[in-house]
């Protein structure tokens, strides 16, 4: 849309703060978070529960409102970006409507955004192919495995032209074999669509395998302890996980997590 802004970061956070007021007193969910994400990056957020990684992702999506600092998405406020449908969001659960077929589920955002029905069909077919679910459009969610459901929910997030994809532990509930497979597919998909991806995870191997940038976070208050630019090449077969480079990055992530934890563990 705005060509001259090509070099500007997609997401930029400056001294971001977020405090939740709860009955047990204020909870400092994010403190002094500084981060910029460039176009086409694959950024993972990793850290223990309560470190604010999901909260940060939700701030980018304007599902939470920061209480301090500045945050821009595509050069706009997150809420403007949301209203411009700048991103697709994938939740931990697939959250498909049980009363809609897979194709109709993917059409949901397209219907809401007012695409013509011919265009809806075309896009559904395109994204179904993209997530390797061609031919499953007529099935109901309960007829699909958990992994396939999650792929359908990714297809739903890809169906409209958002160039940012935010994923909150999308494979957290799946077993490791399915997860490996989906990780491989996700990288392929990322390479083909050139989207900017924000990805929240608990898993060190997943974060290292997928990301160009790994953001290590720690809790109480939620903050960034390390940002690692991955030295791994863009082309990543699954067995890259046995290379020394991979192990070294994983080691650094683990160190970062341990440092952030302090005496807690």
């Amino acid at each position: 849309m705005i060509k001259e802004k090509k070099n500007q970061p997609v997401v930029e956070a400056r001294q971001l703060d977020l405090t939740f007021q709860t009955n047990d007193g204020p909870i400092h969910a994010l403190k002094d978070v500084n981060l910029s994400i460039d176009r086409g990056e694959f950024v993972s957020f990793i850290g223990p529960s309560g470190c604010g990684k999901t909260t940060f992702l939700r701030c980018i999506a304007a599902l939470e409102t920061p209480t301090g600092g500045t945050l821009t998405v595509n050069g706009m406020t997150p809420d403007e970006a949301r209203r411009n449908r700048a991103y697709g969001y994938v939740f931990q659960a697939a959250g498909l409507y049980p009363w809609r077929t897979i194709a109709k589920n993917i059409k949901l955002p397209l219907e809401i955004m007012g695409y013509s029905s011919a265009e809806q069909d075309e896009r559904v077919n395109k994204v179904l192919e993209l997530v390797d679910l061609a031919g499953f459009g007529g099935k109901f969610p309960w007829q699909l495995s958990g992994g396939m459901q999650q792929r359908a929910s990714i297809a739903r997030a890809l169906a409209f032209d958002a160039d940012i994809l935010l994923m909150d532990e999308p494979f957290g509930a799946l077993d490791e074999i399915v997860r490996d497979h989906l990780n491989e597919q996700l990288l392929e998909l990322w390479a083909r669509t050139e989207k900017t991806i924000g990805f929240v995870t608990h898993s060190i191997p997943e974060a290292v395998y997928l990301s160009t940038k790994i953001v290590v976070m720690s809790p109480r208050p939620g903050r960034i302890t390390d940002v690692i630019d991955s030295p791994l090449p863009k082309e990543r077969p699954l067995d890259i996980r046995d290379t020394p480079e991979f192990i070294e990055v994983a080691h650094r992530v683990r160190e970062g997590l341990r440092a952030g934890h302090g005496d807690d563990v």
Partner: protein
Amino acid sequence: MKQITAVLWVVAAIVAFWYIACIPMNIDSALNAAERAGEQVDPPNAKERMQENDIILVWDNSFAIPDTWDQDRPRLPAPHEVITELWDSTVGKKITSKRSLVYHGWVTLSATMLGFVIGTGLGILLAVGIVHSKVMDLSVMPWAIVSQTIPIIALAPMIIVVLYSVGVQGIIPKAIISAYLSFFPVVVGMVKGLRSPDAMQLDLLRTYNASQSQGFWKLRLPASMPYLFASLKIGIAASLVGAIVGELPTGAVAGLGARLLAGSYYGQTVQIWSALFAAAILAGCLVGLLGLIERTVLRRMGMAQ
């Protein structure tokens, strides 16, 4: 097969209990008839028998037991008497006859259906309002609950009198009493149903920047369907009760309620029981029909596997 056996056993137990209950209930009149027919009865005096415990009477006059199942005006009619009466007053009479239970059933059913439609519509509208407006949630819901704490039998005559005084009579007052009983389960069920989508589903729509009405039509309403049908089944049974209660104070012109009332005026217990059974069968059919619609709709929607 195992289930059918179990069901039949329960039915058999109920029928057996019923026949046994008929014996002490009807022994007095059976013995009076026997005395008139010149049989030896113990004690021989009707007044003494009145004082005597019914169980002891049965014990001393076991010959009269079969008679207790075949009385003209029994205190408790036996199952076969009720069934015979049901058969005679449905199949055996012309539908237009004032003695036909089909005729009376139809009168009640039409009020039930009208009341059910009004009640369901009102219930859904209120639920939509309650879900979307905090003010309505706080102001309407308590009244809806209070409305159900008033015994309908106390309220029904007043509704009929008030409506009659403004010139409304016939089916409408009965339907309003029906609606009064049936809107409540629909409100409660639909509020729960419309609120059933979890935070994640609502967040998802927010990421699409969906409007409130899109959220309603695409998420809340379809998600509420299973709740709606559960409520409708309770609602239609309540509707029928409402229509029958509405017929009681109208001077017993027509309808199952009128039939009940007439039966109790003239001591026609068989007629009362057959009207009761007609009402129960009608309610069963209505709930069954709703269950059928429920299964069809939910299967169409892909929500029933």
